[in-house]
């Protein structure tokens, strides 16, 4: 609770969370604000922003509403960003906790596994995974999650390696607590702060990865995404640059808000950084 107060008094964190809230509200309200499929033709093509009050951000080469696309695109970004990060954090925490707490051969094995995953360029691995499976929200989420877990695993492993030597963990063993109880109830709450901070940056990375996939045309073809809008607008970059710039700006604002949010969380949750 003290951390929450600190977080709310932090201008960086406050700015980040306000922007993030805006994106999340837009994503949630998209079907209410813009009912119907944003991929359908709505008006004449190439209306510039601020030209027609009915389409404040204009329309694209197929006469689709750009504002509707951006608002609906937030749904995909937020959904895939949070879902894939959840997958990555759960896998990474489990693997990192086991490696860090038990150590020994299990640790060696799991560290090798992390290294195998980290030797692949992450985006290339996502492309390979998505190409093998049909591109859909579920497969893209899984692919991005699978690529992101080693980062969390390394962090959690390092935290557990130092925390497992602490006296309160020794006391827990002396009291006869089982390994599961020690890992999840004794150590994990003490490792939560850095995991939470990393999570916010991972969401930003996941959103960028999804956009990059969609830009390349490997996203879910039935959903509008900021990446696919940028990809579609690329051909008209000289004549209608706003088709690239507007979804790009949405992406920048979302990723920036997540990074600010992460910085604010770090300041609030990391007592050593307080007062700086």
């Amino acid at each position, binding site marked *: 609770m003290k951390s929450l107060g600190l977080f709310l008094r932090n201008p960086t964190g406050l700015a980040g969370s306000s922007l993030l809230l805006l994106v999340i509200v837009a994503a949630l309200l998209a079907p209410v604000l813009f009912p119907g499929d944003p991929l359908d033709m709505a008006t004449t093509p190439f209306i510039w922003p601020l030209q027609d009050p009915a389409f404040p951000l204009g329309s694209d080469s197929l006469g689709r509403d750009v504002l509707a696309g951006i608002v609906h695109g937030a749904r995909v970004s937020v959904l895939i960003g949070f879902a894939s990060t959840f997958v990555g954090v759960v896998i990474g925490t489990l693997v990192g906790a086991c490696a860090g707490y038990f150590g020994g051969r299990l640790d060696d094995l799991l560290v090798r596994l992390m290294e195998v995953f980290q030797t692949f360029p992450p985006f290339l691995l996502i492309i390979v995974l998505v190409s093998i499976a049909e591109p859909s929200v579920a497969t893209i989420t899984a692919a991005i999650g699978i690529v992101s877990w080693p980062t969390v695993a390394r962090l959690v492993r390092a935290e557990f390696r130092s925390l497992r030597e602490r*006296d309160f963990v020794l006391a827990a063993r002396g009291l*006869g607590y089982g390994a599961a109880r020690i890992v999840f109830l004794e150590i994990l709450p003490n490792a939560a702060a850095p995991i939470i901070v990393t999570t916010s940056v991972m969401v930003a990375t996941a959103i960028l990865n999804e956009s990059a996939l969609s830009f390349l045309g490997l996203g879910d073809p039935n959903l509008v995404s900021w990446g696919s809008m940028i990809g579609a607008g690329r051909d008209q970059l000289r004549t209608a640059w706003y088709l690239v710039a507007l979804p790009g700006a949405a992406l920048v604002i979302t990723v920036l808000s997540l990074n600010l949010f992460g910085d604010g969380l770090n300041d609030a949750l990391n007592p050593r950084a307080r007062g700086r």
Partner: protein
Amino acid sequence: MPLLAVESLETRYGPLRAVDGVSLRIEAGETLALVGESGCGKSTLGKTILRLVPHSGGTVRFGGVDVARLRGRTLKPFRRRMQMVFQDPSASLNPRQTVGTILSAPLRVHGVHGRIERRRQVEAMADRVGLPVGGLVRYPHEFSGGQRQRIGIARALILRPELVVCDEPVSALDVSIQAQILNLLVDLKSDYNLSYLFISHDLGVVRYIADRIAVMYLGRIVENAPHHSLWSRPLHPYTQGLIRAVPGQGSPGRPNRVAPIAGDMPNPLDPPDGCRFHPRCALAADICRVNDPPLRAVLPGHDVACHFASA
């Protein structure tokens, strides 16, 4: 049968023999103090007995059962009977748990069912060690050092153990608080019929609480004697040096001068041949450089490991 009988216990950290062939016994209701310099292995010995550190040889018989051989499920009932009070209460209490959780979790793990029953026991124990009942919803960092050590003691006693290893329980506390905690430990001992292995580097602290005193040097016990016998007739030169170093124990003519034990403790990775104390001993002779003196009974119940000790 003694409550605890340790025989030739050995603990290694890699090439380092932190505990090197220690034997000792604790009778039910007895307090054995283990004293020695920092790094002599006394803390490791306590943790090895409680199975917090793996041993590499010897036996630890608790109530006749060698707990050093037990694993997993068979060890759990013994965990309940042997507990530890740690040196630094701020490090040994989980900062993310309330005092209520810290004290009730052991009961839950050891099958005390029913929230109401657990709460009753937790409140009774908190009250017994002098914690405010309203403090159970608070976190350890909201308490003072002395109060935190009371929480640590309550946690150790909540399972009603028979043996409690107290690892320097007062050395992290202000001197004004030390006596309170020592008195609490003495009271609790008679209330709950406890046996203590009381680890300390301070003979002065130990004199208030110990029935027997074992002096440890470089991983070995060099003297083990009843409290009064050790104070009145210390037989090992190291023990004699320690007693001289206790304030107020100097020779009457020069009350404020302390004769230090010469030199530093040798590198435990490369202990000296023969008697391990000989490089610092005023009595050292040729035999001390060659032969390692075994622990032998010189007086009834008074064991010492020195070639020159005699009744």
